[in-house]
């Protein structure tokens, strides 16, 4: 049995050896070269891809590689910090116009105040005039009234005399005189109004300068809002012309 097995093994070995020795056929040299070149090319391409791994690849290997748990916590902490930073920045950004660049809150009232100022001044003056008229009428006695009447009479007489004495010139001066007295009175009455107008002008100028500054700094939304507000408050004003005027160097 053992002998038979040995014979079989020997025969198998001889047959296999015979086939190995006398079998023909081999791949062409061209095919060999192609396969070896492909292997080298694959190595080169692998080296280049390994040298420049993509961001996603690096992030993936960083997160899911060794020590991934710590890296996950670091990544989450980073995201949390980023979120807090963005939130703070956004809030600061929202508050900034109120704090620094915004038009003062009193400003919208300024034109209205400017318009109201003459009225207020005139009302005050009227009150004072009334009071000054009322005080003598109430405080003065009958005698005083008589004295006053006399004095007025004297004054009127003297004025009449003056008129008579200066008759020739008085005619010439008659027309301008009331005007002169009227304009003086007007000037006296309009003085507070002018002050208020000056204030309003100054305020308007400030706002126009503010508008120019906003446009220069690129705050277009705020600049447009201010421009619209100025248009509403000063509908008769040519804002663009005013701005150009402001921009012109003195």
């Amino acid at each position, binding site marked *: 049995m053992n002998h038979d097995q040995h014979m079989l093994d020997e*025969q*198998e070995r001889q*047959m296999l050896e015979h086939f190995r020795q*006398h079998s023909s056929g*081999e791949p062409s040299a061209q095919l060999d070269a192609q*396969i*070896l070149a492909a292997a080298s090319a694959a*190595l080169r391409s692998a080296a280049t891809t390994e040298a420049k791994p993509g961001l996603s690849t690096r992030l993936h290997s960083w997160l899911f590689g060794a020590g991934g748990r710590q890296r996950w916590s670091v990544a989450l902490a980073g995201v949390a910090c980023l979120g807090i930073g963005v939130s703070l920045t956004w809030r600061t950004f929202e508050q900034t116009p109120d704090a620094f660049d915004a038009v003062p809150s009193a400003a919208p009232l300024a034109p209205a105040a400017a318009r109201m100022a003459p009225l207020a001044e005139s009302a005050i003056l009227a009150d004072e005039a009334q009071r000054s008229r009322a005080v003598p009428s109430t405080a003065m006695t009958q005698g005083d009234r008589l004295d006053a009447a006399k004095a007025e009479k004297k004054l009127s007489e003297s004025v009449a005399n003056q008129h008579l004495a200066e008759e020739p010139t008085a005619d010439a001066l008659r027309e301008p005189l009331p005007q002169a007295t009227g304009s003086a009175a007007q000037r006296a009455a309009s003085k507070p109004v002018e002050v208020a107008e000056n204030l309003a002008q100054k305020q308007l100028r400030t706002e126009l300068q503010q508008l120019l500054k906003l446009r220069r700094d690129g705050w277009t939304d705020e600049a447009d809002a201010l421009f619209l507000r100025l248009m509403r408050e000063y509908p008769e004003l040519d804002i663009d012309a005013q701005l150009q005027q402001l921009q012109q160097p003195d």
Partner: protein
Amino acid sequence: VNRPLTDDDAALLRRYRRGDAAAFAELYQRHRLGLFRFLLGLCGDHALAEEVFQDTWMSLIRSQSEQREAVQFKTWLYQIGRNRLIDHWRKHGRHQAGHDEYDEQQHAPHDPQPSPEQQLTLSRDQQRLQAALADLPEEQREVFLLRAHGDLELAEIAELTQMPAETVKSRLRYALQKLRRLLADPAAEELSV
């Protein structure tokens, strides 16, 4: 005799994966002839054998995986080649003389044991070798080629072909008997042709 090069093959493959082109050249040189003759013996078509041979090596090159611990590199390589050839046949059909299912039990008793004289007169004619090989049933031819050119052990062939080791062993024995008969007896060869 199987060369104890399994570890060496695996080491060469690892070196290649780490960027050593010379390691691949050595690996290729070591297995090119055996794999090609195995494929040529299976399909009998030089052009097709070259195509499948190239496809096999290219798939090895493209594959980024290293050799699995449990599988020898050679078994792996021959399995890739065999699968590629079967894929080709599935896709394009087989263009070879078909063999009827070979009834091993029916043929085995009639295979006479060759005498030493017959062994000495084994034909060295390559055409006769090819003809005798082509005359084998496909399953026997595959096992014989894996043993002869791949130098694989029976257990490895069984793993590769996913057949029981005993089946592989009997197929190899019948293949050897028939080849011996065909190559030793010119009359038998004429009968088979």
